[in-house]
C-alpha cells in the first residue's frame, strides 16, 4: 500500500535575487514498511524532499499525499496534527529536547498525542529497551553520547507508531561503530513494527542497509531503484 505519493513536485528557494530550483518535477511513491534511502550529492534536493514529505514545508506545485491524504493544502495546525500522529523525525544533529531526560524525550510525542499514562509508560520503556538504553532513562541529552542520543531520537520517532520515519543524515555525526549500531536498530525496528524508514544520506554504510535506493541529482530523480 502506498503511504507516500509525490507527483510532479516543484520546490524553489529564493535567496535575495538568486532563485534555486531544489526540486524540479519529482515523482515518487513509497510503500508501507519500506526501508529506503535518498542519495545524491549536496544540493541535489534530498533534504528538501524529506522536509516536504515530513510536512515541514510546502511544495510550490504538484501533488503530495501522505497516507492517501492531500497535505499540500492543509492548514498549519492540521499539518502539525499530521506530523504528530503519522511522522517520526530523526535529524543529523541529535535533536532532543535538552531539558528533558531520555525517558521524557521519548514520552513527549505520546503526551502530545494524548496517550494514557499507563500505555505511555509501557511504550516508552519498551522503546528504550529496544534501543538498548534502559539503563540511561534518567539521563539528559548532555549526559549521553552522540550514539546514545541518536538512539533516543530513534525511540522518540517511533513512539507515536507513525506511518513513516524520516531521517536526515542520521549517522553523519556518529563514528562507524555507533553508526552501524543505530542503523542496525532502525532496520530491526523497521522489520518488527512495519514502519517505513526513509533516509537521506551520503554514507555508503547507510546505503548498504537499504532495500531501495533513490538517486537524486539537481532536483531530479535519476534512478528510482538503484539497488533493485
Amino acid at each position: 500500500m502506498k503511504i507516500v505519493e509525490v507527483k510532479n513536485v516543484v520546490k524553489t528557494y529564493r535567496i535575495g535575487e538568486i532563485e534555486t530550483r531544489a526540486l524540479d518535477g519529482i515523482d515518487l511513491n513509497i510503500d508501507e514498511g519500506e526501508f529506503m534511502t535518498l542519495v545524491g550529492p549536496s544540493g541535489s534536493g534530498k533534504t528538501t524532499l524529506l522536509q516536504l514529505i515530513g510536512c515541514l514545508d510546502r511544495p510550490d506545485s504538484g501533488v503530495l499525499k501522505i497516507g492517501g491524504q492531500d497535505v499540500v493544502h492543509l492548514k498549519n495546525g492540521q499539518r502539525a496534527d499530521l506530523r504528530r500522529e503519522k511522522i517520526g523525525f530523526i535529524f543529523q544533529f541529535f535533536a532532543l529536547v535538552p531539558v528533558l531526560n531520555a525517558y521524557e524525550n521519548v514520552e513527549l510525542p505520546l503526551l502530545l498525542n494524548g496517550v494514557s499514562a499507563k500505555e505511555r509508560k509501557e511504550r516508552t520503556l519498551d522503546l528504550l529497551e529496544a534501543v538498548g538504553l534502559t539503563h540511561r532513562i534518567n539521563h539528559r541529552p548532555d549526559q549521553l553520547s552522540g550514539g546514545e542520543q541518536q538512539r533516543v531520537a530513534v525511540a522518540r520517532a517511533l513512539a507515536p507508531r507513525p506511518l513513516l520515519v524520516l531521517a536526515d543524515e542520521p549517522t553523519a555525526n556518529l563514528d562507524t561503530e555507533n553508526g552501524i549500531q543505530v542503523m542496525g536498530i532502525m532496520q530491526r525496528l523497521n522489520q518488527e513494527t512495519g514502519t517505513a524508514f526513509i533516509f537521506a544520506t551520503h554514507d555508503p554504510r547507510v546505503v548498504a542497509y537499504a532495500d531501495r535506493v533513490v538517486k537524486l541529482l539537481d532536483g531530479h530523480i535519476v534512478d528510482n531503484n538503484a539497488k533493485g
Partner: protein
Amino acid sequence: MAFGKIWVIAFRDLGRNRRRSGLTMLAVALGLALLILMSGLVAGIFDSIIANSIQLNSGHVQVRAESFVFERPSLDWQDLLEDSDELLQRAVNTPGVKAAAPVLWSSGFVDTSNEMFGVSVTGIDPESSFHDPIRENMIAGEYLSIDDRDGVLIGRKLAEELGLGVGSKISLLVGTSDGETDVDIFTVRGVFSTGIVLYDRGVYMPLPKAQAITNVGDRISALILLADDTKMADPIADALRSPGLSLVTWKDMNALILGAMEQGMAFYYLIYAIIILVVAVIIANTLLMSVFERTRELGILAALGLKGHQIMGMVLLEAGTIAILGSIGGILLGLLAVWFLSTNGIPIGDDVASMVESYAYPSVFYAKFVPGVFSAVTLAMLGIVLLAAVYPARYAARLEPVDALHAL
C-alpha cells in the same frame, strides 16, 4: 494532557540560564518593590497632609457667618458669629461631632527691637480637644489656660526665627474690628512644634483675651468641628445648616490641596508607568534572547507536532513564572520597605517643608499601607509583563519549523 509537559519544559528552560532568569526576576522584584514603596509613601504623605490640615487647621466642618470670607478674614461684627455658646451647644449635641472649638482669627505683628514680624494670631478655647495636637506637642513651657490674660503660645519656627523662648515678653500689634490696631505685651508661656512649618509660625492666645484685644465682644470667626469619621462631615454640615450660617466641609477648605494632589498623582502615575515599562522591556528582551537561542529546539518541538499556540503558551508560561516569582519577591521587599518607612519615616528637614508653605507639609514623611493600591500596582505589573511576553511568544509560535530546524 500535554500541558503538564509543556509546563515542565518551560520551567526547566528557566533553569538553563539561571543567572539570566534570576536577574530578570530581580528586575521584576525591584520594579514592583519600588512601585509599592512609592505608592505607599505617596499615600502616606498625602494622607498626612490632609490629616494634618484637618486636625490642626480646618477641622471636618466649619460654621461661619454667611458673609465671612476665609481668604480675607474680617473682624467686622457682621462677618462674625454671634451667640456662639448656643451654636456650640447645638454642635456638640449633633451626632458624629467629636469636638467643637470656637476660634477667632486675626493677624498682627510681633514687634522685635529691630523689625515687625507678621504673624497669624488665633484665639482658642484651650480646653477644646480640637487643640489636643498643640497640647500634646508642647516642647517647652506650659499649655494655655482659658483665663490667662497675658500669655501666648508660639510655634517652634517663630521661636527660632525671633530668638524667643518660654518667659520671653513680646509686643504684639493686633488688628481690631474697627480697623485700628491695638498693642499689648504678652509672655510666651510655651512653645509647640506640630512638625509643620505652616503652623509652627503661629501665635495662639485664649479666646477671651483675643476677643478683648480685637474688640469683637463675644463673637467668633468660626466654630470648628471635628467629626468621629471623615464620612460624617456632610451629615453634620446638613444638620447644622440654618439661615445666616455658612457651613463648609474639609473638602471645600482643602480643595486647593486636593487639587494639587490630583495633579501630583498624574506625575506619580507617569513615573509608575515608566518603571513598569522598563521592566517590560527587560522581560521582552530576556524572552526574545531565550527564544532566539532555542530556535532550533522550537523547530524540533514543531516537528514533533507541537502547535503554534502550544509553543506560545510555553513562552508565556516562562514569562508568567518569572513574573509571579519576581512579584512575590517584589511584594515582600516592597512591604518591608513600606513597613520600615511607616515606623521610621524619612526626615526631609524644615527647609524643604517650608518651601511648600501653603500646605500642611510634614517635615517627616511616613509611608502607609494601602492594600488596594498595592494590589493594583502588582496586577498592573503582572499584566504588563505578560503583555511584553506576547511578542517573543508570537515570534516563537510563528517560526516555520523548517526554518527553525536550519537555525544554528
